[in-house]
């Protein structure tokens, strides 16, 4: 359902990725591992079509990067959830509105929004903090808000770019537990990380990339 085939993206600086091919099957959890600068983020950007491959192609559900029209890209993203190392929360609104925002801007009806946001916040264990603002929360809590926002539209694939990069080991473990729970419900997850320790503690397929090419699947 998500497949990268011989994807190449080269930036003018010379950085980028090349010969990237792998799949994420429905319900699968995959770690994308590699050192900083190997192009993990670029691979994720290809999946949510922030970048389109210069060679090769990416398939996400029924969408293919070769044929997709620009105006259809938002609809690809509605089927995905994305979580970042730096959370990317909106500081001018509380936890509830940060999560509900993801539904508001794609035109979900108000009644439905409330139900789904409360469920997502319960999933990440933050129901009691829904009126707090991001800067009143710890790093781990902020990342949980970001995860709630990513799963609130019930994506079939959750993408995470170094989701524990800014967190201490205990908090990181808590975040990983949440991913595991989400995965257990049948959502596919692709986590990019350079933390090999984290990878070794969870049972999941590992895709290793190094300076542009895939080493090991």
């Amino acid at each position, binding site marked *: 359902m998500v497949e990268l085939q011989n994807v190449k993206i080269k930036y003018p600086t010379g950085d980028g990725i090349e010969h990237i091919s792998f799949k994420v099957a429905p319900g699968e959890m995959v770690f994308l591992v590699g050192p900083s600068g190997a192009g993990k983020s670029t691979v994720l950007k290809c999946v949510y079509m922030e970048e389109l491959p210069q060679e090769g192609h990416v398939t996400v559900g029924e969408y293919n990067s070769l044929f997709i029209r620009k105006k259809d890209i938002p609809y*690809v993203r509605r089927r995905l959830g994305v979580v970042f190392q730096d959370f990317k929360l909106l500081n001018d609104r509380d936890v509830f509105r940060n999560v509900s925002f993801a539904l508001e801007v794609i035109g979900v009806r108000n009644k439905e929004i409330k139900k789904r946001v409360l469920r997502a916040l319960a999933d990440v264990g933050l129901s009691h903090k829904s009126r707090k603002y991001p800067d009143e929360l710890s790093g781990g809590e902020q990342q949980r808000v970001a995860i709630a926002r990513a799963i609130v539209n019930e994506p079939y694939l959750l993408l995470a770019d170094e989701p524990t990069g800014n967190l201490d080991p205990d908090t990181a473990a808590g975040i990983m537990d949440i991913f595991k729970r989400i995965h257990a419900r049948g959502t596919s997850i692709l986590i990019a990380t350079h933390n090999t320790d984290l990878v070794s503690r969870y049972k999941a397929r590992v895709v290793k990339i190094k300076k542009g090419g895939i080493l090991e699947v």
Partner: protein
Amino acid sequence: MSLKYSIREAFSGFKRARLSFFISVFTISFLLFIISIFFTLAMNVNQLIDVLNAKIDIQVFLSTILDDTEIAQVGSTINSLDQVANLEFVSPDQAAKMFQQEFGEELFSILDDNPLPASFNIMLKEEYRTIENIEQLANTIMKIDGVDEVEYHSEALGLLLKFSRIATVISALLLIVVVIGSLFVVSNTIRLIVISRKDIINTMRLVGATRHFISLPYLLEGIIQGLLGGLIAFLFSLGLFAFVQSQWPGLLTTPEYLFYGLLLAGVLFGYIGSLVAIKRYL
């Protein structure tokens, strides 16, 4: 839902770039105000020219020694000229009546016989009604045998035509300045708002908001700026014209559609300005 969101965002944009918003509104209103002055002037001069034009373009006075056949001959020579749309013969008797109407004096009570010559009033075809053409034609007619004198509203008409042309050119130039100026200030304001909203816009893109949905508040924002600019320009124009009217009654006619014109122009420029900004910065 989506419209409510867009309107709310558009108004919050105003808070985010308040100074820029006001500069933008006042620039638009100032430019539109100036253009409304020149437009009104041009329109008034053109109306005056139309009134003068509608009367007579050229008057040809004939020598008093011509007999009827010779007069008819001169008439047909003039009539055969390309530029002539209509030819009207005025006999000495008719001229005397018109003189009487104009001056309220019985001509024959002063003089024994009628000193007024017969004349032709020439109306030109629309496309030949320029001062150069009128002068040229007057010279041609002057050379026809039996023509004594040719008269046209050379100086007054020429001056008016010149002024009207200048006013029209200035209006057109101003229009270009207004368009470019409005586009610049509006798109700059939108750019500032977009920059201050970068986080929100990125998040929207990430969760799959359509481009249309993301840009709608900024389009509204531009339209609001233009609308306010147009409104202020209209109020200023109204004030100025009221003042002119009170000082010199009847001097100016204000265009009826000025209000709608200014609002429409404001809205249009605001809309295009934000469109430019969205294309470039979003």
